[in-house]
């Protein structure tokens, strides 16, 4: 299942599941991640799944690459493990003050705003991974007619709650953060809650997300 295992520095194992990004490969990554997580090996300090890679970090004073590699290779993988499969609705407002890059996208994609939004809202999106910043979901795949490159100059501060698009993916900025994705709207929903230590992320890998368009009034009143 893992195509190649190598070392990433002296304290991590790099598991390569392939080069493509699709649900099938990603499900394998998530399944390995869940199995390793449940096994609770001594010395493992982090498991970082992504589209098609899984990085297993360890404490070099407790274990090493060869030992950790063997554990991964010999791990008995139980199928269809407890992968999260929730369906989540995210309200977003795409009015001017929140849709920072819609005008630029009209030009990049050569399509009017209405068509861009209609295409975007008509699909459900799969969560491949979370990370970069706490709780940020990487969702896909967006319609091929909406594929756009990152901003040439990334923003120093993307507002919290922003929904961004790039290539086949979209994401939600859980915090104000630097970033270069094309911002088409903003959600009033809190997607990451650091006070909920057991389950801080609203969206987890394997979940399906659909976006609901709301107007500015509803956005402003959302948390009241």
């Amino acid at each position, binding site marked *: 299942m893992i195509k190649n295992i190598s070392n*990433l520095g*002296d304290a991590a194992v790099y598991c390569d599941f392939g080069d493509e990004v699709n649900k099938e490969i990603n499900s394998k990554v998530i399944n390995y991640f869940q199995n390793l*997580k449940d096994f609770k090996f001594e010395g493992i300090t982090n498991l970082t799944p992504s589209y098609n890679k899984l990085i297993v970090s360890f404490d070099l004073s407790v274990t*090493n690459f060869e030992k950790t590699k063997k554990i991964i290779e010999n791990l008995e993988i139980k199928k269809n493990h407890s992968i999260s499969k929730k369906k989540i609705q995210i309200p977003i407002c795409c009015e001017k003050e929140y849709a920072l890059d819609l005008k630029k996208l009209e030009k990049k994609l050569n399509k009017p705003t209405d068509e861009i939004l209609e295409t975007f809202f008509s699909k459900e999106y799969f969560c491949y991974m979370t*990370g970069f910043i*706490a709780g940020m979901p990487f969702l896909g795949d967006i319609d091929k007619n909406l594929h756009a490159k990152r901003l040439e100059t990334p923003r120093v501060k993307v507002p919290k709650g922003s929904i961004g698009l790039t290539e086949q993916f979209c994401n939600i900025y859980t915090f104000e953060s630097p970033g270069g994705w094309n911002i088409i709207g903003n959600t009033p929903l809190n997607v990451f809650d650091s006070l909920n230590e057991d389950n801080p992320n609203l969206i987890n890998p394997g979940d399906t997300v659909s976006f609901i368009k709301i107007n500015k009034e509803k956005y402003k009143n959302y948390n009241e």
Partner: protein
Amino acid sequence: MSENFFKVIRAGINTTFQDLGRSNLNHIGIPISGVMDKRNYIIANKILQNVPSHPIIEFAYQGPRLVYYGEPLNISVSGDVKFKIFKNKNEIEGKCYEIITLEDHDEIDLISTNKSVYGYLAIGADLNIDYQWKSCSINTKANIGSNNGKKLQDSQKIEVSKIKELSRRKLDYINSKIENIRVIKGTNFHYFSKESQANFFKKEYSVTKLTDRMGMRLEGQRLDNIINTNIKSEGLVKGVIQIPADGNPIIMLADHGTIGGYPKIATVISADFDKLSQLTPGSKIKFKEVNLKDAETIFKLYEMETNNIISKIL
């Protein structure tokens, strides 16, 4: 019961509570955080006979100035730090790596770190601070950890309790510098031209001002990517050296983003993290290649050296 606490007169540039950080949360986007210079953290706590994971006050460049109110309390400072203690009207030059006893109304002014970045103030008592995911480490980007995830602020209080018995212990120790950063080739090393692969190990790189607890940006001979300046985003670990489109290296440090989309040219070995973190902007470094076996041996030596230093505390 009397209250024992510090009051922050001046917070300093980037003063945070840290410990060994929080593990197994990368998958939700939370990095490991924790102290930048682990050896100096261990030594400062060990001098006070604190447990190895005891919270510490970490500061960068200019540290805090604090006034203490309460029962006599032991502290120790580690790193290469210029600091002063004020007792009544007396001004005492501070010495790192030895126990200092603070009494009611004494002040400590952690003025600056000499030709280094991070210094540590360890306290011989429990700190009354919050833990998140079993760690007090403050991650200011995600507002996670003690102090509501924010760096220390002017005029705030730091309460302490369970003050330890007073004692006198010290260590003769001088921090050494590093010029060669040892690395293992990365998963995307072949993305770079033959010339750039050679230059990466041959040319000097300087540390820029765009360096913080998240990462260290370097500047030097541009590294030419001949395959793709982006990869499909994937996990990062501390020490990974990413090369974005501009061709200058960025080294991931304790508060790094958990996922990144730039090619990985190499990874710094674990034994060199402490000294790497202490490099000030303008410092010149060279990367030196080692293999995995060497890195593992070097790490064992690093641990032995730490234990050897600790054993010399008298």
